[in-house]
């Protein structure tokens, strides 16, 4: 089934926040952000701005009626800077004017007097200064200290991985208008309407039943609109309520990049120990998470880094620690993968370095340490229905990786200035919110008297096709055509207290709730039909829109059944509630069963490197992926292809850089480059692992949003391998992304003869 939105997408008829027809008298808001990254606010001069043409009002921290606080996990983030500023672009004032241009022009006339304070943009430095947002956390299994003596090879090193701009095509936006009785209607580009609702209440001193948040769809989000939709909605709400006018606030691209947080950069110190059979015996890693200026969801991101500290390997003795470091950059936030990619990167870097030192192919170490059935993760959960080895073996068989390696070798021996590099990458990713309480979803299903069905859930459609999957669930349970079912906008008055659409759980939680609601409705309708047809309920079923008795079609069709049920005062609405079973986690012991299941896979990547120019392209990526049993291959394939491209960008060309003043240097799409159509694998093959439907996934179809993002990681190591082919002596540095700059410098780096090469 194709994405139900695609027909209106291609006609340009899909509505995003900025496309909602505006009401008469709508005002436009523009956010003024701090020009400095750290300092004390001495004065904010609004005089010229207020007099600027078209300006209706300017709001600062002093105008906030409730609490000046939007931190969702830890209350450490003001909505508007008051006494101090902590990053460049930190919102300071909101200018409201009759047009967008007037608001923008007026904001340029605001002047700030700031007493500068030292700027820190490096997490290691923040750690050294003890600028931590929360105490560090450590996951332990076994005893690393006593295991080192049993290790044949011990390798220590450092690594770092940069941040990533979400670069959703639709920037943040919000449209708010006042209703009667002090209520507000809020259209927001958020992944978390309930967070927006709560945030507005806190800032405005209102109660949640006064705020209605409505979201039709987002033009991409990827985590960037999970926590960070809130400030813009709060600001627009404040202006709207104060001025009693509709207010629209759409961030332009430069402000969106400047003011919103990104994927967390991490730095690492690691130590890995292997025995003579290349089994990883001991693993210690300290991760320095660059959280930015306030905590946002960093504590949760930290948690997922801990959970993925062993990647897809069984490690009997491990000690994994994460420090959440405060820096003067925008508060870093959720982003597809949510802390797992960073943790997995350092593990792969350690394996690469170990392989280099021992003189074996890194895939040899990967293979020998893959998780097996029943192996414990460092957090105590055991690997169940573990597909790691099956994916690895199928990839090797299906893609003939041995032959690919041979071809790469031959190519390299024949070409002086062009080299190829190959790498393999095994994936294991845990599904569920690591915060157990978030693993709940609701769905409100109405059957109207004409037989059509409308569904409202807590999930946000942002391109991932979740509403299509929900339609499929309802259609399957109710046995009616998909055309009769409509998933409508996500609205806090229809579904309350929803979890953000995140952690790849949208379809499982909200599809699960929809399934329950539809099953209850079906039960009720069949019970009613049994009375109408005077037969036993157990003999009835609904198929293709008709009631069957003992597998024989009756002339009672869906429309008639619904109508008669209504006439007999049967309830045709149902609110389904789903809570993921089996999961738990005890934070005091850092042990438990936090994930309902894991997703596995294996990727092989080949890159083609121009050694004269230091540029490369991606020749192929081939993937075996564990879908469980995909309920919609069109959509799931799209998720893998898209996540892969984004994952490739993350470790290759997407470079985020803050200078010493805390300025984001690559602050628009002309300087921050994401993959274009020419920078994707020329050849891409995705093979589903033949496996059973997954027990706790919706209709057996495993979550697919985040896991395949990790497959991009292989590109990094393939580039390293290609560089080595040209410059065998270069000391591999594990600093992602491996930009064209780093690549060229590595190609011509002077040889370090102390490094042992494979086969020498």
């Amino acid at each position, binding site marked *: 089934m194709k*994405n139900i939105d695609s027909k209106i997408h291609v006609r340009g008829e899909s509505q995003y926040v900025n496309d909602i027809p505006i009401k008469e008298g709508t005002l436009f808001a523009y956010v003024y952000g701090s020009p400095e990254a750290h300092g004390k606010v001495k004065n904010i001069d609004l005089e010229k701005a207020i007099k600027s043409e078209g300006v209706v009002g300017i709001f600062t921290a002093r105008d906030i009626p409730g609490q000046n606080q939007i931190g969702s996990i830890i209350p450490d983030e003001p909505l508007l800077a008051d006494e101090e500023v902590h990053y460049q672009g930190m919102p300071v004032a909101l200018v409201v004017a009759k047009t967008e241009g007037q608001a923008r022009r007026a904001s340029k006339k605001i002047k700030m007097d700031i007493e500068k304070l030292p700027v820190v943009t490096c997490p290691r430095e923040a750690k050294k200064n003890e600028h931590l947002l929360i105490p560090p956390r450590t996951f332990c299994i076994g005893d690393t200290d006593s295991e080192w003596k049993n290790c044949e090879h011990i390798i220590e090193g450092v690594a770092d991985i940069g941040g990533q701009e979400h670069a*959703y095509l639709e920037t943040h936006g919000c449209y708010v208008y006042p209703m009667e009785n002090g209520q507000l209607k809020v259209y927001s580009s958020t992944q978390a309407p309930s967070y927006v609702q709560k945030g507005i209440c806190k800032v405005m001193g209102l109660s949640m039943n006064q705020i209605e948040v409505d979201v039709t769809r987002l033009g991409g989000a990827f985590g960037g609109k999970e926590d960070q939709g809130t400030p813009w909605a709060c600001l627009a709400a404040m202006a709207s309520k104060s001025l009693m006018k509709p207010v629209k606030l759409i961030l332009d691209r430069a402000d969106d990049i400047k003011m919103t947080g990104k994927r967390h950069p991490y730095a690492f110190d690691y130590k890995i120990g292997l025995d003579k059979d290349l089994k990883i015996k001991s693993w210690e890693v300290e991760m320095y998470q660059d959280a930015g200026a306030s905590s946002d969801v960093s504590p949760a991101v930290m948690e997922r880094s801990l959970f993925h500290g062993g990647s897809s390997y069984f490690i009997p003795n491990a000690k994994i620690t994460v420090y959440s470091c405060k820096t003067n950059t925008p508060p870093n936030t959720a982003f597809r993968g949510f802390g797992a990619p960073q943790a997995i990167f350092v593990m792969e870097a350690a394996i690469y370095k170990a392989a280099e030192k021992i003189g074996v192919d890194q895939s040899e170490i990967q293979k020998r340490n893959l998780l097996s059935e029943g192996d414990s993760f460092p957090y105590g959960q055991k690997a169940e229905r573990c597909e790691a080895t099956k994916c690895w073996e199928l990839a090797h068989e299906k893609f003939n990786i041995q032959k690919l390696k041979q071809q790469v070798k031959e190519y390299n021996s024949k070409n002086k200035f062009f080299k190829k590099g190959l790498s393999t990458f095994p994936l294991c990713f845990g599904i569920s919110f690591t915060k157990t309480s978030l693993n709940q979803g609701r769905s409100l299903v109405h059957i109207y008297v004409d037989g059509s069905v409308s569904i409202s859930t807590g999930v946000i459609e942002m391109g991932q096709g979740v509403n299509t999957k929900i339609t499929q669930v309802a259609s399957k349970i109710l046995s009616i055509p998909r055309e009769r079912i409509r998933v409508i906008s996500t609205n806090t008055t229809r579904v309350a207290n929803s979890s953000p659409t995140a952690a790849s759980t949208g379809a499982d939680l909200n599809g699960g709730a929809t399934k329950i609601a539809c099953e209850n409705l079906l039960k009720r309708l069949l019970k009613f039909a049994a009375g109408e047809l005077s037969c036993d309920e157990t003999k009835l079923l609904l198929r293709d829109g008709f009631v069957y008795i003992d597998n024989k079609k009756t002339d009672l069709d869906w429309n008639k059944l619904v109508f008669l049920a209504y006439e007999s005062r049967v309830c045709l609405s149902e609110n389904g509630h789903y809570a993921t079973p089996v999961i738990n986690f005890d934070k005091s012991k850092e042990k438990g069963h936090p994930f309902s299941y894991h997703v596995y896979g294996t990727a092989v990547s080949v890159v083609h490197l121009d050694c004269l120019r230091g540029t490369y392209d991606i020749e192929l990526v081939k993937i075996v992926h564990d879908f469980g049993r995909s309920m919609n291959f069109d959509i799931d394939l799209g998720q893998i292809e898209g996540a892969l491209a984004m994952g490739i960008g993350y470790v290759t060309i997407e470079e985020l850089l803050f200078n010493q003043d805390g300025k984001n240097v690559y602050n628009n799409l002309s300087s921050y480059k994401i993959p274009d159509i020419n920078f994707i694998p020329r050849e891409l093959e995705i093979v589903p692992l033949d496996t059973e439907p997954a027990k706790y996934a919706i209709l057996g179809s495993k979550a697919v949003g985040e896991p395949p993002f990790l497959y991009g990681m292989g590109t990094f190591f393939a580039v390293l391998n290609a560089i080595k082919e040209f410059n065998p002596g270069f000391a591999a540095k594990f600093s992602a992304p491996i930009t064209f700059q780093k690549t060229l410098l590595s190609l011509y780096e002077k040889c370090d003869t102390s490094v042992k090469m494979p086969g020498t």
Partner: protein
Amino acid sequence: MINLIVNDQIREFDLPLGTSLVDVIRDNLKLPGTKIGCREGDCGACTVLVGELDGENLKYKSMASCILPLGNTRRKHIVTIEGLNLDGLTPIQKAFVEENGTQCGFCTPGFIMSVVGFCLSDKKKTFENIKIAVAGNICRCTGYKSIERALSIIVDGISKIDETDRIAWLADNGFIPAYFNGIKNKLKEMAVDYSPKRTDADYIMGGGTDLLVQELDEVEEATIDFIQEMPGLSGVRIENGKCFIGSTTTITELFESEALNKMFPKMRSYINLIASHQIRNMATVGGNFANGSPIGDLAIMFQALDGTLVLNEKGKKREIKLKDFFVGYKTVNKKPDELIECVYFNVPGENTHFSFEKIGKRIHLDMATVNSALVVEIKDGIIKAASYSVGGLGATIRNMEKTSGFLVGKKISNKTFIEANKVAQSEITPRSRPEYKRLLVKQQLLCHLMSFAPEALGLEALQ
């Protein structure tokens, strides 16, 4: 007052002519299908088609409406996604749906517009060409593979297009609405007497692709002379051994110029490294110079070709070498009232070779970190003349006089390269990322020389 056709309607606007077209479309006409993604031409979400009479022909080009000033749309046909919709899906839309080429949908209208622009163009209907047509459209969701699959279906679907009357064929086959057939006559009827003249306006504007990014607020409130339709400023012509390129010639017109590509056989591959299809359709040669950027791709090329600019201050003409034109960072030797008329250079002889290199953060649609051009005349294996310019090293494009001088009289060899590089390194002082930029200069110099004499150079050059 300005009149144009938007989709099937003739429209008149009394708005500042520097207004960005996307705002006119979305705010004034309430057509929200055209999206705003970046307002600097780097994402393609705002792509529209611009149809223009060229003699008897109606030619369409895709453009980024966010950096297209209203003033450049006079008597043109603007097509937005709403202007393409039929009752059912067109084959192009259907292909995107069938191949799952849309996820969040925000970039999709822009892709569809670029594809329709390609179908309407005289480009050969190959997969490679259709890919070039959408290379300025960024998608963050799909990873492009599904889009590629859709493109390949579309290319097959138009393989039988009647190239003598594409509009009629596409309308007959349901790719575009039938009203397209009547646009040519409507435009002709609108073509009343309008002759743009130089005034005392605040701005002189060519394609607008830079000014609408850099100075959007200022431009919207300013008076502007739009020069694109001024006579005599466009096109490539050869006269008396000189090649003249008018300042309003677009990069696409350079791409299409037979004369230019005959002189420089690799020019098309170089031009594909500049901006994107939409921007190439708008951006002008003169604009690339007036901008004064130290990494202007065309400025680098024409400086190496020892180009001369002809400037015109209301009838008062003067000439200046490009290398003297750039005086500081984004500062040029030009009075505000002076209009760049054209650039000219000597038509290269048969022994002259031209090479251009550009490396940025991404291969396509990116600004250069370092870009360079080398022009050499080689006779009997010996370099007789050389001209070398490098961008990205400081405030202005570097004219590498010493290196050029050193190369003269040399035979291309590993040794020549090694020594030439030493000279090159001595005459540059990169301000940022010096280690990388120095290495780029070295590597690009090697690539240039290899393009002239591939056999003469080997790994030894890099020892």
